[in-house]
């Protein structure tokens, strides 16, 4: 399938260009912190509850809080309805998202507690795990939970032989490779990294750099959204 034409992608983007990203902070009333992210045609909400009592008790850690991120796709988020409930894919994404976020949250401050992060994919169009992680990180900040750094996330991939940033659905379906990644921007280290498809070692290096750069751009958008929300609150007070 011809995904690149005259150096441009199906939606007119250049190789290293992100889709449009819009972040809203504090969109829910029950959650301690929350965020809504529109990213291309993805629509994702994240909510944070906690630190709160950990149930069941035998999962408590007396030295720190346990962060649990649950990634879930709404049945109507994809064209062919997804059956409700966790499947193997969402179990895997929940696991690696929990691990990435655990790296930045100062869990030691809340022994025996749980910090629950819920990511709901309301509309899905490739890259949802990166969108979810980006939203979750903003929601954690909105909740005022102490963090060493943010988590910013973006995928790169290989499409018609070219390394490109931030695959959309068609590129994900008919491309050669997908490489989702998340960074902690201050130290520029990766906390999530996956790949599936076909890449040579050199292509990997390039795709890796592209994804890091993309994630750093996402970080700027996260920061702006958080700053704007803080200012809004100040003005509102």
């Amino acid at each position, binding site marked *: 399938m011809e995904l690149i034409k005259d150096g441009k992608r199906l939606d007119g983007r250049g190789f290293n260009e992100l889709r449009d990203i819009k972040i809203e902070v504090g969109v829910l009333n029950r959650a301690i912190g929350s965020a809504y992210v529109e990213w291309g045609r993805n629509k994702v909400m994240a909510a944070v509850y906690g630190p709160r009592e950990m149930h069941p008790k035998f999962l408590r850690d007396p030295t720190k809080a346990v962060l649990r991120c649950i990634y*879930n796709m709404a*049945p*109507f988020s994809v064209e062919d*309805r997804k059956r409700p409930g966790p499947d193997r894919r969402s179990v895997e994404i929940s696991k690696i998202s929990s691990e990435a976020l655990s790296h930045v949250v100062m869990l030691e401050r809340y022994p025996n507690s749980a910090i629950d992060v819920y990511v709901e994919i309301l509309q899905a169009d490739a890259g949802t795990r990166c969108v979810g992680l980006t939203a979750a990180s903003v929601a954690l900040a909105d909740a005022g939970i102490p963090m060493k750094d943010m988590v910013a996330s973006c995928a790169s991939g290989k499409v018609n032989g070219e390394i490109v940033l931030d695959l959309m659905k068609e590129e994900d379906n008919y491309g050669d490779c997908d490489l989702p990644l998340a960074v902690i921007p201050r130290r520029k280290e990766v906390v999530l990294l996956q790949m599936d498809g076909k890449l040579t070692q050199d292509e990997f290096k390039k795709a890796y750099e592209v994804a890091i750069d993309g994630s750093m751009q996402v970080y700027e958008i996260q920061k702006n959204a958080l700053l704007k929300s803080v200012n809004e609150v100040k003005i509102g007070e």
Partner: protein
Amino acid sequence: MNIEAYLRKDYITNLIKEGKRLDNRKLDEYRKIEIQKGYVGEKASGSAFVKLGDTKVLAGISMNVGTPYPDSPASGIMTVNTEFRPMASPHFETGPPGEKAVELARVVDRGIRESGSIDTGKLFIEDGKVWIVFIDIHMIDDGGNLMDAAGIAAISALLDTKLPKYEDNQVIRGEFVGKLPMTGTPVPCTSVKVGDTMLSDPATDEEYAMDSRLTVTTTTADMMNAMQKGGKGSFTDENVMQAVDLSFKHGKEIRKLVEK
């Protein structure tokens, strides 16, 4: 939470005894309703995001092709599923639907089914093949009265729904042949009893304080299609008749918003 809940319950009960509500509404007044149809319009066949005060619910419709029930081989199928996502409330948990989620789904289902709002006769495709209308209701933020918010979201999403093209034994995603055939707009309206007082559209705190709940789904100015009492309290005849009256009254107003 428990002690706080008990104190809060007392406070609310006394307030309502004086005819007042926390947010200064009248006893029979609904919170502001906002309906955004097509909220997730690029993948789902229909959708609606509903705000009822600060309660938020998102309903999405998926149109799939499947086998009809043996006892009605010429009719399409509808099914209602509710997701009490833990995002929406500190009291919701992951896992299979609990009894509240099941009850809510079944009450919304009955209103739509018994009113015949979906013209399932027009959802026949060919022998052994009919459209299945999946109505999935996602709870986003529970500020009280999820029942009405969910019912409004479901019927709004149905009215937003397009019928996909079906060709060569395949659903052609993104192409549509028209709207989902609809013939009515059932709207559930809930009243609750706090002490001896009936009030409309309870907020979260009022749900803590309530003894019992009565939901009545009306479809026209003089037709009701479903009713459900919940909670451990009891109703007098007067309570019941008042709730029915209120449901017809509010149903009429809300129906206008939904059909807009």
